[in-house]
């Protein structure tokens, strides 16, 4: 029984393997980084060893998708998720599994001794198993990172669209960052909703924080302006920088019918005039 040998070795020399593994891990992860404590690492190695011993005992082959390996998989997913959150790199995470090989192979060698054929076979089996476990870990790591990135993107989207009331009947929306379809949609929705809520007559779109304006961005801006007009509100675009003015003309974008101003102050002055308010010094 080939697999029985693997589980036998795991059972018999578990302690030594764990010690060797912990040492390798400590060497692989530069000390002093302090992202994971020695106690935590010891807990994780102990848990993994326990689970893989149990799995190797029952499993027919080194197929990690088998139900026997479910606890091992889940454990590794947990480890990799927490490492992704702690800011580990993917190779550091993979090292957790791959550094298990060295002490494990040493233990196999000690067990098999002279029988080269059996040793080679067992080593190959173990390699196959650990490689797939390692890959699974990396896969989960990648997925967790993507989840984190997606969440941050969503949060940024919400953060970057504040609609502020400047005056009675005047709203301003300072846009910061690149405008794409998804963002424009959010911007448009929140601005239009705010217009309904506050009954504002004029909205000022400030594009000082928009780094570049190309035809697509201009189109998005025009859409917002049109939607506002349909709802019965006026729109002024402010914060047009000299370079942007040049680009817009060079691109041949038609901004006719859209009021534009160089800065927010001018736009506010115009908006006040249109709403019939006046400021005295």
């Amino acid at each position, binding site marked *: 029984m080939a697999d029985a040998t693997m589980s036998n070795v795991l059972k018999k020399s578990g302690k030594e393997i764990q010690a060797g593994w912990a040492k390798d891990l400590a060497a692989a992860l530069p000390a002093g980084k302090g992202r994971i404590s020695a106690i935590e690492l010891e807990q994780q190695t102990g848990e993994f060893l326990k689970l893989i011993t149990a799995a190797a005992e029952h499993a027919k082959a080194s197929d990690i998708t088998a139900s026997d390996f479910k606890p091992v998989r889940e454990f590794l997913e947990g480890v990799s998720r927490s490492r992704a959150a702690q800011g580990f790199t993917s190779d550091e995470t993979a090292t957790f599994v791959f550094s298990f090989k060295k002490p494990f192979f040493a233990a196999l060698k000690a067990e098999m001794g002279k029988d080269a054929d059996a040793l080679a076979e067992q080593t190959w089996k173990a390699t196959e198993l650990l490689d797939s476990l390692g890959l699974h870990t990396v896969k989960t790591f990648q997925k967790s990172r993507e989840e984190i990135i997606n969440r941050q993107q969503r949060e940024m989207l919400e953060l970057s669209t504040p609609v502020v009331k400047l005056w009675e009947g005047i709203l301003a929306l300072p846009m910061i960052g690149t405008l794409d379809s998804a963002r424009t949609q959010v911007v*448009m929705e929140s601005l*239009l909703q705010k217009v309904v809520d506050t009954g*504002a007559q004029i909205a000022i779109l400030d594009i000082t924080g928009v780094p570049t304006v190309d035809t697509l961005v201009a189109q998005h801006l025009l859409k917002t302006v049109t939607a506002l*007009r*349909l709802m*019965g509100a006026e729109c002024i675009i402010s914060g047009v920088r000299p370079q942007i003015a040049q680009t817009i003309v060079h691109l041949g974008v038609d901004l006719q019918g859209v009021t534009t101003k160089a800065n927010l102050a001018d736009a506010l002055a115009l908006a006040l005039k249109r709403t019939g308010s006046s400021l005295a010094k």
Partner: protein
Amino acid sequence: MERIPILRMGEFLLVTIQVDMHDQLALKLQDDLTAAIQKHASKGVLIDISTLEMVDSFIGRMVADISGMSKILGAETILVGMQPAVAITLVELGLSLPGVATALNVERGMALLRQKIDSDGVDEL
């Protein structure tokens, strides 16, 4: 057969669309409204679509058409109370309704209508 009521308020007409517009209804409204403008010699029309939640390209075009027809009959038309979702849909459909005056609510629309008619009157004199 259901129809959209057209209310007369002095020299203005008020149309409140409170049901989901379908094509037949829109065509009927077009007939009724042009007839009503003729009959009452109205100077302004206010179309309130604040309860309209869904539009398609046909209804969008219909609204633009009605506005154009009223203008030809000598009545200023103002579209009031468009919902954000409707505005976004129309823009995405490429219907920016050029030439259609809009206002946020009936009150503002009425004020704008009076203003327009007053300035027209001055022009004529």
